[in-house]
């Protein structure tokens, strides 16, 4: 459903991403891995319109969406999270997710000022759905807790809940397990595995936690120095000499 073709991005002469192509098919969990600075987050920014690509194209459902504004991508059903924890921190867990459902509610000013039964009904539905999303990621116990007082692991779950709240078809998570301990990462893995096929159609993941990547991915795309190194099934990636070299360096002669 998502196809990336020959993506390039230059920042003042530095090629952050060069000729990267890959595909995410419906029903798949694809992980984008690589050492720090490999260009994974830049790829995310290029796909979701937070930065325009220097060249190359992004296709969603066969439609060219290269350089569409971020909110347009979200309205099409491509919703991402951020590497740096990003939530609406003065709101509660419930309010965060309710806000995320914004695009599915009433957006007419006239009906905002003079709400009728249809608007009240839509608000009621939004609230129920938001509560269900909160339950789905396992934060029900924290429903009315302020986001500012959540633990690091709970914040990561909340980010996933916000992205899910927007009703994505393709969910793109940027290092959802960063800062989580092993146990929390496993919990997150369980949540993510359950999403594809039920709440979202496909999942694209940037992640450093290899345990999580190997456990949830159908396919892994490896990047290094802005280029795509290889791609394949998790078990074959683990054995790949180039990948091992990118992470650990060359074996001494």
């Amino acid at each position, binding site marked *: 459903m998502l196809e990336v073709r020959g993506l390039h991005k230059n920042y003042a002469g530095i090629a952050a991403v060069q000729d990267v192509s890959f595909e995410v098919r419906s029903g798949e969990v694809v992980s984008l891995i690589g050492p720090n600075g490999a260009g994974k987050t830049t790829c995310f920014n290029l796909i979701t319109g937070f930065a325009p690509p220097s060249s190359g194209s992004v296709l969603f459902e066969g439609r060219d969406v290269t350089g569409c504004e971020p909110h347009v991508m979200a309205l099409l059903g491509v919703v991402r999270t951020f590497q740096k924890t990003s939530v609406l*921190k*003065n709101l509660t867990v419930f309010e965060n997710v309710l806000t995320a459902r914004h695009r599915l509610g009433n957006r007419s000013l006239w009906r905002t*000022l003079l709400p009728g039964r249809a608007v009240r009904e839509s608000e009621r539905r939004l609230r129920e759905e938001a509560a269900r999303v909160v339950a789905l990621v396992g934060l029900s116990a924290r429903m009315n807790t302020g986001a500012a007082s959540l633990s690091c692991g709970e914040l990561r779950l909340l980010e996933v809940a916000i992205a899910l709240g927007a009703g994505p078809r393709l969910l793109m998570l940027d290092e959802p397990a960063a800062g989580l301990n092993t146990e929390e990462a496993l919990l997150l893995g369980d949540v993510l595995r359950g999403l594809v096929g039920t709440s979202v159609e496909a999942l694209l993941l940037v992640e450093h936690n290899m345990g999580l990547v190997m456990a949830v991915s159908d396919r892994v795309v490896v990047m290094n120095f802005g280029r795509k190194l290889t791609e394949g099934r998790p078990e074959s990636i683990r054995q790949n000499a180039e990948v091992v070299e990118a992470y650990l360096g060359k074996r001494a002669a």
Partner: protein
Amino acid sequence: MQFERRFLLIAMGLAALLPFVVRDEYLAHIGVLILFSVTLAASFNLIVGYIGEFPLGHTAFLGVGAYAAAILSTRAGAPIYLTIPIAGLLSAATGLLIGGITLRLRGPFFVIVTLCFAEVLRLVANNWVGLTNGPMGISGVPTPHWIASQPILGQKISFYYIGWVIAALSLYVCYRFVYSNLGRGGVAVRENRFVAQSIGIKPYRYALLTFVIAATLCGFAGGFYAHYISYVGPEVFGFPFTVSMIIMVLLGGKGTLVGPVVGPVVVVLLEEYLRDFQDLRLSIFGLIVMAVVLFLPAGLMGFVARRRETYAPA
């Protein structure tokens, strides 16, 4: 949500009954000032509290509204029930124009450029003598016959009720907007622009929508001001009005709906009370404001009434 709703209903209900108890010209005048200030504060708070930008040039809309009403009623003889709505519409158009340009900027840049717009409008009002009568201002903005024919107290109370209707309308619009799907979109922009975009909200569009609503309310207040004071000069674009809007909103609690009701009551009463201190008045006032900012950064109502929506399973 429930608290804010009840508070606003009770406050406006009591305000509607007040003239039956208080039969004093001076107090009625204070009441009119408070209602006028509530409208201004509610308008200012929409931008500061729910978009998170600081519009130092908010007097632009007060001024446009005031001049619109003054010119329409003195030149074209338009009645008050037309001049005030038209003042609001013209302010909305001005808001669309100024907001359309300035909301592409953020933080200090936005603050300075909005301030510049207000200053430019002040200079225009000062120099376009043909339209605005220049520094002399427009005096003799007519009071409607049904008000002018009453004794002074009756006149004040009539204006009090017009002010009440405008304030009530403003608070209603704010309440509906803030507690709606659109308002949540605005809050998302205030809290985190990147998250807002990632969930399908275009920050610029929401900021502009809020800005135009705020400008409209401010325009109503301006039109009302022109008729009540019956004089409009270039100083309506001046900085003192902005300062009092800032003080009232910060004191009451920005980002709350009850703040812009409590703030004006406290500020207007305090200003009147401190008249006894003559030259020291503004200094004492400044100290009180500093104390509030230091010790109650969320404002007087900030700790009781943040915008909240809780979920309880049905």
